[in-house]
């Protein structure tokens, strides 16, 4: 079974990341946002949805996000930083409390920033050594800005 890093531990990945419109949906599926929107009645209960870069979070207005255990955010390239804003909006604007999982092409060195904007799970591509990636699983011990974990900037904590 594929593994992922979640909350600082390597665990089994029990969900299936559905990336097309044909694969049958099972209850442990993470479904493309657009497909979920189009077929949600037929799809029924799923583990979660995922947002692609460029889709934004606007389509989630009015959706009850507590029905999702996982919301995935895909990185088509590790230099494409749109997902950083999406995660932050999910936590701060939508008050989503479940798992936010990074999917696709991001790199272990980005975990520090990803954690700070609200991600707590990292499903790396298969070529990444998770034991080594785990060594980079932390941000700096101090930060100037507030973030998804502590909204207070340093000037409220100095």
């Amino acid at each position, binding site marked *: 079974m594929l593994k992922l890093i979640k909350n600082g531990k390597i665990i089994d990945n029990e969900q299936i990341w559905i990336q097309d419109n044909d694969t049958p949906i099972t209850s442990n599926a993470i479904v493309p946002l657009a497909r979920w929107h189009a077929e949600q009645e037929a799809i029924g209960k799923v583990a979660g949805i995922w947002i692609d870069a460029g889709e934004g979070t606007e389509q989630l207005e009015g959706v009850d996000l507590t029905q999702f255990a996982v919301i995935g955010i895909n990185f088509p390239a590790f230099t494409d*930083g749109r997902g950083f*804003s999406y995660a932050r909006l999910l936590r701060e604007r939508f008050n989503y409390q479940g798992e936010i999982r990074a999917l696709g092409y991001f790199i272990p060195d980005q975990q520090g920033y990803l954690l700070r904007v609200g991600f707590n799970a990292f499903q790396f591509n298969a070529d990444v050594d998770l034991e*080594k990636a785990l060594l980079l699983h932390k941000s700096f011990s101090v930060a100037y*800005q507030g973030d998804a974990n502590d909204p207070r900037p*340093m000037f409220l904590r*100095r």
Partner: protein
Amino acid sequence: MYQYDAIDQQLVNERVAQFRDQTRRYLNQELSEQEFLPLRLQNGLYVQRYAPMLRIAIPYGMLSSDQLRTLAGITRRYDKGYGHFSTRQNLQLNWPKLEDVPDILAELAQVQMHATQTSGNCIRNTTTDQYAGVIADEVVDPRPYCELIRQWSTFHPEFAFLPRKFKIAVNATESSDRAAVQVHDIGLQIKKNDAGEIGFKVIVGGGLGRTPMVGLTINEFVPREDLLTYLDAIIRVYNQKGRRDNKYKARIKILVKAMGIDEFRKLVDAEWRHIRGKESTVPMSEFTRLQSFFTEPNYETLTDNPETLTAKLADSTGFARWFERNTFAHKKPGYRIVTLSLKKPGQAPGDATAEQMEKGADFADQYSFGELRVSHEQNLVLADVRQDQLVELWEAAKEAGFATPTLGLLTDMICCPGGDFCALANAKSIPIAQQIQETFNDLDYLYDLGDIDLNISGCMNACGHHHVGNIGILGVDKKGEEFYQISMGGSSGHDASIGKILGPSFAQEEISSVIQKLMDVYVSHRTDEERFIDTFRRIGMAPFKEAAYAKVN
């Protein structure tokens, strides 16, 4: 100036450790070239034509003498004994070894310096007026606000992978704009409203590069406590909506232009409504804390124009010239702002040797409370010099090669490193600067010509800001040969404008004679009080073009 506390220090120390590990993994081939690239860029490290280039941050241009001495030592031990001060008030090393960079960063950290976010698609070093805090007509000292922005932008977790680089500049003076805020991704003009409250006029979408644009006002007055949430709102919109399919169309200026400023403003305001007033609102205590680092030094009670100064001004043309061009009025009686010119003929504009840096540091200790600034025009500034010590300083500065009395004149050029160093360049720029310096070496003539900004870039990335030079020179590649396109009419101040191209490009050896022809047109058309740019704006391009391309009989 700002002093790190334990928190600031811990952060730069952790950054050094992080980069040391990243460099080790890159050299071990655990980290690919492609993945190391943005990581090293966000630590200021480029791979250049002959060697890596390391760009060290000098936040809003402020340097202590100890920091400058450390920089001198670094250039000596890790490089070839010189550095290049850039238009964004940073220092570039041209010859460091990649494997030495972690050690260089560790040495910088010991004097509260770093190379964080001096490159890459993130928020870059914030720049401001090199005369901040010492001129009479500024609204308030902009440096506490620059430091606020520095801390907010440093390791901002959401904005490290933007569509493209992002530059912020701050100006606090109504009479002039030495920070060129209208040609930055965000320009901030500090002002007071009718109630006397401090805030910012926010300009967005300016920039140079391939598609130069003067920015547009997005908000006439953002109260200072709301600055960070407003910046977050702008950049959050840009991070999500800016183009990522074409790096030449990825700057915020393209988004603002495509969307229109009104539509862009709507999105920013909608975003801002959610975050305005929340935790990132800056409390008065933080302004007070930051302002406490920029209090006035122990000025003596003095009077203007002491006898030693006036006597020398009457007596020495050389001194009088230097005083007129290279010094500037100070807000305190008996003091003067002095620019140490890095435009000595024979030296690349903005370059300083290790010896010059050490001399500059000594001058700062001796004459200016131990502090210096780096200017956008690539010179060093001593902000607090007693007028009765100007003669002594002038003598010493001459000796050190710092007293070229041409500030603001034709030969006080802005110039990028160009094809001699930079891998991006289409053409060399330093030899053009040298040619102009050699041709226009008659000080009387230069003084007669008066204020002229001449800016040189070796390619359309425009690091030499050629678009906003009264005369701009751009290196272009024509079938593998280096040619130079000349533009005219640019300006970077409150009257910012983008220059227009004169006509077909010229060969390297023609540049000085073309500039000479442009000067001749100016001299024959100018009225008594007109600067070059004024005459150009009045008579237009045509007479200049005619002269530049006239057939020689």
